[in-house]
């Protein structure tokens, strides 16, 4: 009796199961939509952060583009090298991975080092520039209201004493901050480069010093310290790191930058230049 009951249960449920399975199968056939399964697979391999750092609207759009060979898997800034290699080997294409880039805020002017006016309004850089160009004495400096920090999906930018500071180890290079900064202060630089000039003002040295203690005054000490090697490039009243041929961290020590505009990225992030400027 029990056995019979069990058998009836099994058969009826089995029939429902198989029936549903077949219906799904048939309908799936009848309504099949051609999908490139590679897209799905690539999307699976992507991190799924949807940060938009690759320049596409989210990971699935990027996956589509990769499969269509409109983009290289290496364009994903978040993927690790292995991820990229996996995708590339899955698709049988070149990884096309560029050098790892991180954001650099080209300003070192925190509250204690710069002249600021008494700004009274919305605490957001993009909004502050609408009013009198923001609160900063320097037209080119970081306003310090943290639009970039808010735009960073990875929490890689810290607002410290009215200055945006990038933590390179957290930065994945999505460039969201670059687009957000109203002063166009942020640029992407190779993660391998350790030494940067934390200043962006093309003004004359004297004008800069009036408003900022840590501006690059183009004294060229660092250029000289790097000797024959073209580690540093002079551009008007501003010196820039030559990212084709970046200097080592020793250069900062060697050049004894009088305003500490030249800094080691790691030390800058770790707040080791506080109060250093002369």
């Amino acid at each position, binding site marked *: 009796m029990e056995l019979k009951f069990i058998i009836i249960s099994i058969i009826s449920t089995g029939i429902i199961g198989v029936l549903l399975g077949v219906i799904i199968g048939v309908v799936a056939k009848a309504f099949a939509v051609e999908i490139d399964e590679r897209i*799905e697979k690539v*999307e*699976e391999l992507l991190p799924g952060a949807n940060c938009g750092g690759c320049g596409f609207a989210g990971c699935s759009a990027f996956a589509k583009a990769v499969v269509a060979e409109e983009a290289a898997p290496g364009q994903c800034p978040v993927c690790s090298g292995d991820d990229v290699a996996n995708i590339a080997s899955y698709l049988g294409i070149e990884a096309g991975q560029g050098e790892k880039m991180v954001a650099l805020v080209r300003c070192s002017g925190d509250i204690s080092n710069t002249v600021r006016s008494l700004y009274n309004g919305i605490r957001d850089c993009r909004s502050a520039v609408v009013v009198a160009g923001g609160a900063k004495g320097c037209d080119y400096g970081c306003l310090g209201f943290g639009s970039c920090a808010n735009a960073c999906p990875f929490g890689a930018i810290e607002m410290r004493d009215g200055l945006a500071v990038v933590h390179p180890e957290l930065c994945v290079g999505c460039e969201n901050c670059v687009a957000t900064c109203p002063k166009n202060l942020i640029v992407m630089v190779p993660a391998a480069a350790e030494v940067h000039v934390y200043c962006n003002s093309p003004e004359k040295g004297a004008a800069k010093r009036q408003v900022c203690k840590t501006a690059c005054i183009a004294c060229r000490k660092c250029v000289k310290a790097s000797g024959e090697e073209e580690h540093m490039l002079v551009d008007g009243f501003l010196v820039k790191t030559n990212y084709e041929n970046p200097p080592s961290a020793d250069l900062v020590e060697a050049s004894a930058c009088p305003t500490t505009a030249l800094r080691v990225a790691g030390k800058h992030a770790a707040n080791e230049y506080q109060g250093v400027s002369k």
Partner: protein
Amino acid sequence: MSLAKEFSKGIWKENPVLVLLLGMCPTLGVTSSATNGLGMGVATLFVLMCSNMVISLMRNIVPKKIRIPVYIVVIATFVTIVDMLMQAYAPATLYNALGLFIPLIVVNCIVLGRAEAFASKNGIVKSLADGLGMGLGFTLALVALGGTREFLAGGTLFQIKMIPAWTTDFMLPTSAAGAFIILGLFLAAKNAQAIRKAKREGKAYTPPGLDCRSCNICDMDK
């Protein structure tokens, strides 16, 4: 991770209710008293362990495409078994109080979520530890919530009056509204603790939201 860690994470650090925000429906629905919370917790614990075990065993033979339906069938089976066992052996009042929510363990995200996120990737012993930990975490959260609601309503715990002088029942905590609000306060308390901890460690803390971080059900179809 060690076995002990797999077990203990579910109880506090990754508590399914307070951190992963899974299984909210029974959490809210049955916690009008501590007894109900305990009953529901134990039932879920049983299902969770059984399903984790079976799914861990089956993980290598199930075709990926129909993983989810198969898991659901497995879970539904154990839920029905629990249902029948409770009907046979648990006190009638408890069975009646849990009512609708017993069959709904099937769709409790904890069970499916752990099946998908853990059991389908780990061995049977680990999966059992995970199931036990998560189930206990769930049970504890439910008992705590049920106890709080019950106590706030009339000073009782497990239907026993703790404060005999408390004579006027305050019905808000046991009403539907109270369920939401008190769970909200629970979450906030957990968040506050996590915030303090994060601050000590110098980290940023974002309170968990019920977004795609905890409930990865839509990801499952990939």
